[in-house]
């Protein structure tokens, strides 16, 4: 026994002596001017070719044997900092990188960012917010989601809309996170604008496949958006006045270097501008007030308790509102005084809030506790009242639907050595689904009737746990291996799935690698979306005993290469299968609200495959990218298209995007985007014929319209060129920028909607409606 104890002690002493020779450098990397933490900054030992990156909160940790090192800290758009360190103890550093005035002025080194071929993750693209702001935008309104539409594998929906269809998936299959909180409806004005105010955003990352295990709950993508934290050094502001909206952002310290805030607001003013037009339409006599507006408000406050503890509280709220108000109209009829009044409106909006606490346990373990509350709601209201003398009869209808989430999440980052980056955590979400109900109130002859008709709220618990390791097996081979397990409990039903994830890269030489990934995903919420008209009536519903959770399996393979340090090329092929997708059955309609939603849909499967090319120039006077996607996407449901496979509405064979930004001088830059996409697949009847009802009843000679297959008609291809110019005007108070842009420069009449009507000669014809011709716009942006 004594021999064993001696051996054990000897072994422990050897291990301890080994451990004593290694030390950890940890800390945070931030912007020297604003104090903003830098996400994904590179920490790199030049001599040993090993390194790490900072996490979402700017934290990094690297454990190395005792020695002398030249550690490079770098981030795209910032001057690199090299620290010579004699590592004989654990070190805590606070690295402050100096931002370049613009991307072109910063010298690019090979280590500036983690090179594409070295990353294990694939199908992932980060788009700098500065670049998003430089891309031409419709009506001059910078739009984060529309910028993502320009990436390969990402397709837009209808003309002008900000919906994302990623690798054959629907818009409900995108996990859009704002500071870690899911945003259920990310669009304003039927999708023409997204809810994200670019001035309040720090980082945007899109993941299309090879999902790390920490993400779950959606099949097709993760769009991880981080809000700025607010300047910790000084009060700053920026804003813009554009064609349809104005916005302002103010940020600054409450306690210098400890507590900071940011608040950003945006509102459209179309409703104010079109009042004269409405009055002209309504005419004299009646007084009506009608319009539409949306607004956003982003706010965040963060506090640094110590080097080890940070607290963040972030909030987003945004609403769209259509309104029509008829002022009381009084007249005399048959000796009676009659007063009529009518009000109607439609609104929808999100609220997301997150409280996050970062804590650092020693130098290698970092944790983040997140508590979130979010809600999305849609409502339509109508009120009508008629008064004859003092006898009032009134009627009001309020339709409402939505989803509320309360969630908690605990995540850990553990970095035991440069060869391992381990992440693990747990989360739980309590969902409240409100799948559509009508509240009706009638007052007549002094009797009040108040009823609610529709589906009852559904409550569900979703929870998950994950672990992943970004494991450097050899100098050439690195893999991110993980597993995500999730469960969902609703109405005595319990669903769960263990979802393995793996992504690996093999470096062939210094500049190129081959990558492969597999991801199994499970999604417990569904979006009922109407295929005829895109409306915010789209309804989030849970998996039930009838409607099972959606799941997918995706494999991808590709290669990545850096060329002359300035260019990056990636080519990927993917194959994705999806099960338990839901779609409306034939004839399902929003107007038939008496039918349970589960009876309007059925479950089926989908398949998507294709190849994507992404060639990017990230730096220099000219930057931008070329993206190309070749893809196929189809669906199959037992009772839709009589069980036959049919193309998905957004099955686009070819999708091309070219984005170029060029700096003409110190104060002038221009940019252009060109997009091309194969026309969407739609269902249109092809023939008219007699139908056949009951010979003993009506319907015997009714005319009907047949179509041979669902989504069998291809609408015209979509293409468009947008241009913009930015003229920067520095001044004593800050900087002004005049932005001029032209959307759809060559005035392409892109299809928005098709319908059957009559031509000028009275002949039946298929009509194509296009909504956005060439649209020039101007906006003025300022920073102080």
């Amino acid at each position, binding site marked *: 026994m004594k021999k064993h104890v001696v051996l054990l002690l000897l072994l422990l002493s050897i291990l301890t002596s080994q451990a004593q020779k290694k030390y950890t450098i940890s800390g945070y990397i931030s912007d020297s001017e604003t104090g903003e933490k830098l996400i994904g900054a590179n920490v790199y030992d030049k001599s040993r070719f090993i390194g790490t990156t900072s996490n979402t909160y700017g934290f990094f940790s690297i454990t190395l044997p005792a020695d002398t090192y030249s550690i490079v800290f770098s981030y795209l758009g910032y001057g690199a900092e090299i620290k010579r360190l004699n590592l004989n103890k654990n070190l805590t550093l606070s690295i402050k990188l100096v931002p370049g005035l613009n991307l072109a002025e910063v010298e690019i080194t090979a280590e500036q960012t983690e090179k594409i071929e070295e990353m294990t993750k694939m199908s992932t693209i980060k788009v700098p917010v500065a670049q998003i702001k430089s891309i031409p935008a419709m009506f001059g309104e910078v739009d984060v989601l529309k910028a993502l539409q320009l990436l390969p594998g990402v397709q837009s929906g209808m003309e002008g809309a900000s919906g994302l269809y990623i690798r054959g998936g629907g818009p409900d299959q995108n996990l859009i996170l704002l500071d870690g909180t899911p945003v259920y409806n990310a669009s304003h004005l039927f999708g023409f604008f997204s809810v994200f105010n670019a001035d309040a955003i720090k980082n945007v990352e899109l993941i299309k496949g090879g999902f790390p295990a920490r993400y779950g709950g959606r099949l097709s993508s993760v769009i991880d958006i981080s809000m700025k934290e607010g300047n910790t050094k000084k009060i700053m502001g920026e804003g813009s006045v554009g064609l349809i909206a104005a916005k302002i952002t103010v940020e600054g310290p409450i306690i210098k270097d400890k507590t900071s805030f940011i608040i950003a607001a945006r509102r459209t003013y179309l409703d104010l501008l079109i009042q004269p037009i409405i009055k002209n339409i309504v005419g004299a006599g009646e007084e009506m007030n009608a319009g539409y507006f949306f607004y956003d408000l982003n706010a965040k406050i963060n506090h640094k308790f110590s080097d080890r503890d940070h607290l963040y509280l972030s909030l987003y709220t945004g609403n769209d509102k259509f309104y029509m108000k008829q002022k009381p109209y009084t007249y005399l009829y048959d000796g009676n005084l009659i007063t009529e009044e009518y009000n109607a409106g439609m609104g929808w909006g999100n609220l997301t809030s997150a409280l996050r606490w970062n804590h650092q346990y020693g130098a290698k373990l970092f944790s983040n506790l997140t508590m979130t509350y979010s809600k999305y709601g849609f409502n339509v209201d109508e009120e009508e009242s008629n008064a004859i003398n003092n006898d009032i009869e009134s009627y009001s209808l309020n339709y409402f639907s939505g989803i509320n989430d309360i969630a908690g999440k605990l995540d850990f980052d553990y970095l035991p050595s440069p060869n391992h980056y381990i992440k693990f955590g747990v989360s739980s979400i309590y969902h409240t689904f409100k799948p559509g109900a009508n509240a009706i109130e009638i007052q007549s002859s002094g009797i009040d009737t108040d009823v609610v008709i529709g589906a009852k709220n559904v409550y569900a618990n979703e929870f998950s746990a994950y672990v992943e390791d970004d494991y450097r097996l050899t100098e050439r081979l690195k893999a991110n291996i993980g597993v995500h397990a999730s469960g969902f409990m609703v109405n005595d039903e319990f669903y769960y799935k263990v979802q393995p994830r793996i992504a690996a890269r093999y470096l062939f030489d210094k500049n190129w690698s081959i990558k492969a990934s597999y991801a199994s995903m499970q999604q417990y919420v569904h979006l009922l979306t109407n295929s005829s008209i895109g409306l915010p009536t789209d309804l989030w519903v849970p998996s039930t005993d009838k409607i099972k959770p959606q799941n997918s399996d995706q494999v991808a393979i590709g290669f990545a290469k850096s060329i002359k340090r300035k260019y990056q090329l990636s080519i990927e092929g993917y194959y994705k299968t999806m099960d338990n997708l839901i779609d409306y*059955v034939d004839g399902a309609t929003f107007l038939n609200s008496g039918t349970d939603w589960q009876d309007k849909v059925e479950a089926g499967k989908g398949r998507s495959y294709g190849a994507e090319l992404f060639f990017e120039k990230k730096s220099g006077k000219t930057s931008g990218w070329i993206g190309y996607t070749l893809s196929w996407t189809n669906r199959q449901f037992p009772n839709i298209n009589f069980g036959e496979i049919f193309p998905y509405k957004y099955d686009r064979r070819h999708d091309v995007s070219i984005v170029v930004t060029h700096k003409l001088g110190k104060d002038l830059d221009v940019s252009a985007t060109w997009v091309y996409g194969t026309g969407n697949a739609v*269902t249109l009847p092809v023939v008219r014929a007699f139908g*056949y*009802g009951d010979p003993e009843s009506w319907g015997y000679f009714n005319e009907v319209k047949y179509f041979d297959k669902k989504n069998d008609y291809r609408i015209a291809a979509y293409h468009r060129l947008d241009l913009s110019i930015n003229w920067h005007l520095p001044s004593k108070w800050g900087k002004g920028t005049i932005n001029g842009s032209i959307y759809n420069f060559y005035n392409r009449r892109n299809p928005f909607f098709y319908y059957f009507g009559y031509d000028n000669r009275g002949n039946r014809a298929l009509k194509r409606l296009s909504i956005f011709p060439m649209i020039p716009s101007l906006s*003025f942006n300022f920073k102080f």
Partner: protein
Amino acid sequence: MMKKYIVILPILFSSILLFNNCEKVEDVVDFPVKEPTLVLNCFFSSDSTDWVFQISKSLSVIDNAELKLIPDAKVKLMSNNVVIAQNITADKDGLYRHKGFKASPDSTYSVEVTHPKLKTITASDVAVRRPDFEVTKHIIVDSSTYYYDPNTGRNYGWIDGSMTLKIKDDPNEDNYYRIRVYFYDSIYKSTLYNITSDNPAVENNYYQGLLLSDYLFNGQSFEITFDFEDWEYYINKDYYITVEAVSKAFFYYERSYWLFLDRQGDPFSEPVQIYNNIVNGYGIFANMLGKEIKYPI
């Protein structure tokens, strides 16, 4: 400096005028025009010796012409590939008829329609077996007469009732059923439109009856309760319940056809694909066989 920029604002606001003329409608000139094909519609009952074929020509959805029956086609009817009748021609009313032959359950019936200018079409369907059912409960809640018409000698009034049936389903095949309630005398037949059931096996409540498949009760004795009510002019007469076994083609066609009619003009509706079992053309050729039970009020 700020003041200088503020003068730009009026220019921004003037751009709002662009909104007035943004949308534009154009004719799609390259929309493919589908050539006309023969359209055949025929329901044949195994209880009847009468076969009625409605034959017309399809038109492109953008063709201006009116739909019409075709008088110059020829119809050939076959049973298990044996010709029953051929060169059936149109009657004066434009319909094609054949009398004297009754379909037998489990036999396959085929039809071929030829035309001098249009492509030949064919279709076939297997005749169904008579359904096995019994009425286990029937209640008439109201059968009040509100009006007597001396000219017709009929009573007009309201009928309101419910009924429970037990259907014995054949486990060896997929079966489809139609349930209807109606009144008739020697001249007129009146089907009740308001017949409803919340039974999950019922797949269509838009139709003037109930359509159901045995998907949920295959091979079992299946009980279904339904309510019916309507304003009728045969009140105080007998009423009838029919349960028909219908072929799969009949079921799919009826379900889609009535749904199509119901959803016409609804901009929010998903498109309705009408079932078609005619090769090289459009329409329906389908069988049914019912059993009728009379109930006095």
